[in-house]
């Protein structure tokens, strides 16, 4: 079996994860080494054993790359994350007034009550999602080769903050219905990481594009 045939049998999700986290200068060596060993292992022990090995290597390597990213250039990761938190603090509270300003401006409540209800409830949550997606893009663009590490860090900090705040509010007010809000907050964290993945994939596509003569 040739390397081309083995390449097609690599676990796609694991390859994608490596693409997301491996710095461009290491990508060729790491992925080439893993493919070479995968091919050898597939011939020796079979494809399923080789795929399990590839997954183990991917998980360990991704964790290693994340920790190295923090150790070798902590400020390159920390500064975009701090910037993202400040943007969240600045623009997060503006979403609700902005949506109500639109409702007022177009007198939505008077003319389309169902649209008003939708905008005043789900519309605000969707507005937050879009805001955090844009913040995720800004953080990913600012963090150069560390898009995933920066956006995951920002998402985890945001998640920890909202969980602590929600638990505090629920324990002081006794209104446990507020816990349902956590699903939307989780979605906010998810779109931050999604933005990181989109920027990373875009940069990889640009890098792998053949140069025009």
């Amino acid at each position: 079996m040739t390397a081309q045939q083995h390449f097609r049998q690599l676990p796609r999700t694991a390859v994608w994860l490596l693409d997301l986290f491996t710095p461009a200068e290491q990508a060729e060596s790491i992925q080439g080494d893993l493919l070479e060993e995968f091919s050898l292992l597939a011939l020796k022990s079979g494809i399923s054993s080789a795929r399990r090995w590839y997954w183990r290597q991917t998980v360990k390597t991704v964790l290693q790359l994340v920790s190295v990213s923090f150790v070798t250039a902590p400020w390159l990761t920390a500064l975009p994350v701090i910037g993202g938190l400040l943007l969240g603090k600045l623009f997060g509270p503006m979403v609700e007034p902005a949506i109500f300003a639109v409702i007022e401006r177009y007198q939505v409540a008077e003319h389309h009550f169902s649209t008003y209800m939708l905008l005043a409830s789900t519309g605000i949550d969707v507005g937050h999602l879009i805001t955090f997606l844009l913040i995720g893009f800004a953080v990913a663009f600012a963090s150069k080769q560390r898009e995933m590490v920066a956006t995951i860090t920002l998402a985890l900090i945001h998640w920890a903050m909202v969980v602590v705040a929600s638990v505090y509010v629920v324990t002081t007010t006794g209104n446990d219905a507020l816990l349902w809000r956590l699903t939307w907050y989780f979605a906010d964290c998810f779109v931050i990481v999604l933005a990181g993945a989109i920027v990373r994939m875009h940069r990889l596509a640009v890098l792998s594009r053949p140069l025009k003569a």
Partner: protein
Amino acid sequence: MRDRDYLGEFEHIIVLALLRLNDLAYGVTVRQEIESRTQREVSIGAVYATLDRLETKGYVTSYHGDPTPERGGRSKRFFRVTAKGLAAVNSTHRALQSMIEGLSLTRNSS
């Protein structure tokens, strides 16, 4: 080189693997050499993280070979130990030797 330029445990293992492999030291062979001699599974990410750190310290150098078909057209990154790296290995060995000297490494049961 200062006398206190010692290698960490995994750095030490990696440099010794490079010395054993000589001109054939790249990610796959280094990882396999360590696995076969220490019986512990090592990730390729850990190998490269340490090699990059050693290169930053000036203990190893690297260069890219030609792309090969068994690697999907990707090239190998070969590593070599520098004179400074060799001196660091020696000073680490001397430090370990001096710490071990006169010690009995078997624990008394009493």
